[in-house]
Each structure stands twice: as C-alpha cells, then as structure tokens.
C-alpha cells in the first residue's frame, strides 16, 4: 500500500481525507509544518498532501524545506487548499507543487486522480 503524508491543521479536513483515502493508502497525519518536516524526513512517504494555509510555517514554506532537503527533494507534493479562485492553481504549480486540489473536496474522483497522477 502506497504511503501518503497528510499535512493539515483543520481536524475536520483530516477526518474527511481519512474517510476518503484510508482504505486505499497508508496515511500519516501531521498538524503543523515543523512536525511534518521531521516526520517526512524520518519516515519518507510516497506523496505529500500539503495544506497551503498552515498556522506558523505555511504550506509554501514547508514545500521549500522539502525541496531543499536531498532526502525529500523529489517527493511529489500536492497542494490542498481553500484558495480556489481563477489563477490559484497556476500560482501554486508555479511555487513548485506537483498538483493542486481545492477545498472543500466535493469530488473524491478528482482527489484520487490528483494523487494517482503523481504517485511513483
């Protein structure tokens, strides 16, 4: 079973992602950027689902740290974000995210497609 790190501070979003993905993937959940960076480095997942708006160290900062670390640099990272305006997807892909899923999640197929597109 492929392993996904879910970095999300909102407990109901974590609950929803768990309901959608836990039968298909082994999930590890992190609430903060620093916890995620330590965990991902110690126990490398196959893909990271990363909330963009985390308190403290936000998603793009976490992504920068992931890319700067040779151990994690090549990890596919999919942005999970409530920024869903026109142009947001291009903006996040421009920041170095591999994929983009907007919240609220309204289509489980779309989430799965975004994950499967980037899983090694």
């Amino acid at each position, binding site marked *: 079973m492929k392993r996904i790190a879910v970095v999300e501070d909102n407990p109901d979003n974590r609950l929803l992602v768990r309901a959608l993905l836990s039968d298909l993937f082994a999930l590890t959940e992190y609430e903060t950027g620093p916890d995620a960076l330590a965990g991902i480095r110690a126990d490398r997942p196959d893909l990271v689902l990363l909330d963009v708006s985390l308190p403290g160290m936000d998603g793009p900062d976490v992504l920068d740290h992931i890319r700067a670390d040779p151990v994690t640099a090549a990890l596919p990272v999919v942005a999970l974000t409530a920024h869903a305006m026109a142009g947001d997807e291009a903006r996040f892909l421009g920041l170095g995210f591999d994929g983009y899923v907007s*919240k609220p999640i309204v289509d489980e197929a779309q989430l799965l497609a975004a994950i499967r597109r980037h899983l090694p």
Partner: protein
Amino acid sequence: MHTRILIVGRGASRLGPVACPVTWEAWDVRTADPATAVGDLANPKAAAFVGLDLTGEAFPAELAALLAASDRCPRLAFVPPAAPAPVGVPEDDVCPVPPPPGAAIFARLERCRVDERVAWLERVGGAKFVQDLTELVRSEIPKAVGEIAAAAAAGDSAAATRTAHRLRSSASNIGARSVSAVAAIVEAGPPARDLPGLAAEMRAAWDRVAGRVEFHRRRAGA
C-alpha cells in the same frame, strides 16, 4: 476571466465595499434589484452569486427557484442585529427583530445545501463518519464564530482573519455555505469597522443551519 458576483436587493450598493474587498479586485461586482435579478441569475455567464439582501423586498418565487437549482452560494446580508436592551431589561426579554421578507425561503435553501453535502459525506464515508464530522463542526464552528466576534470587538483584524480561514474550511465541509461566504469576506481583510457586523452576520448564518447539522448528527448516530 472575471468571476461575477451579483448582489441583489434594496441596499445592495452598500454591500459593494463589504462583498468586494481589495483582494477580489478582479471580480466583476454588480448590483440589481430582485425584479431584474431573475434574468441575471438565469444567465450562464454569471459564474458566482454571493450576495442577497432580503431586507424589505418581496422575494420572487422565480428567484428562489433559480437559486435552488444553481450551485451558487447565496448569502443573506444585512439582517439587522438585535437592538441592545435598555439598561435593566433582562437579556432574554429583548424584543425580537422580525425576520426580513424572504428569510424563510432563504433559510430553507441553506438547509438544502447542508442536506446535499451530508448526503455526499455519507456516500463517501458512511454514517459513522457523518456522525464524527458533524460532532466536530458543531463545536468548532460556534467556537470560531465566537473567536471572530471577540477579535472584532477588540479590533484585532489579524486574529479575525486567521480564524476566518479555519472557519471557512469547516463551514464548507458541512455545506454551511453562508457561513463560509461571510468567513471568506473576513479572511480577505475588510476594514476593521466592518468586522462586528460581519461577525454578527456569520453568527446568524450559523444559527440558521445549526439545527440541521444537529439533526444529521443524531440521525447518523441512530
């Protein structure tokens, strides 16, 4: 491409600065009265609908039908907050503010949004998941609304903005779309003077659907 926001009703022009913070400058905001709004809402080019002022206007049945059929996000605005009680009058004896015309239809639409979302949640996660999620949001949402009201009263715009992001996400997850819409406005950083009114609007929006969320929590746990 501009996302279109249509604000309907008497006093709609006053909503412009509130509904369209500077960060939404690319959005095309216009106003209309309910009579012409029916045609506007039927226009497929109108990609978004976030404003609805029901104070003092009759609410056309055609408009309600269009809203019910669309996936746009209506937002009830300018519900007058209850006047403070005169000194010495017990808080539970304050005269109630009558609901604006059309409010019942609007509230029913909002409850439908919750029902639609819960149906999807139950399909993808089952009854236990619905029970867990509704249990979580019924405590998280009022808590966040209270925090925003406190931040607004203290003039702490930054705290209100931070909490609004979390609230927007939780409200969206349960289909409380008016709560989510107002939270999006707070998150975008409106002038501090608008925050108390937005906080009151947010609380009223939650009050309109909280019972429905509780209904689904009990049903899922039965």
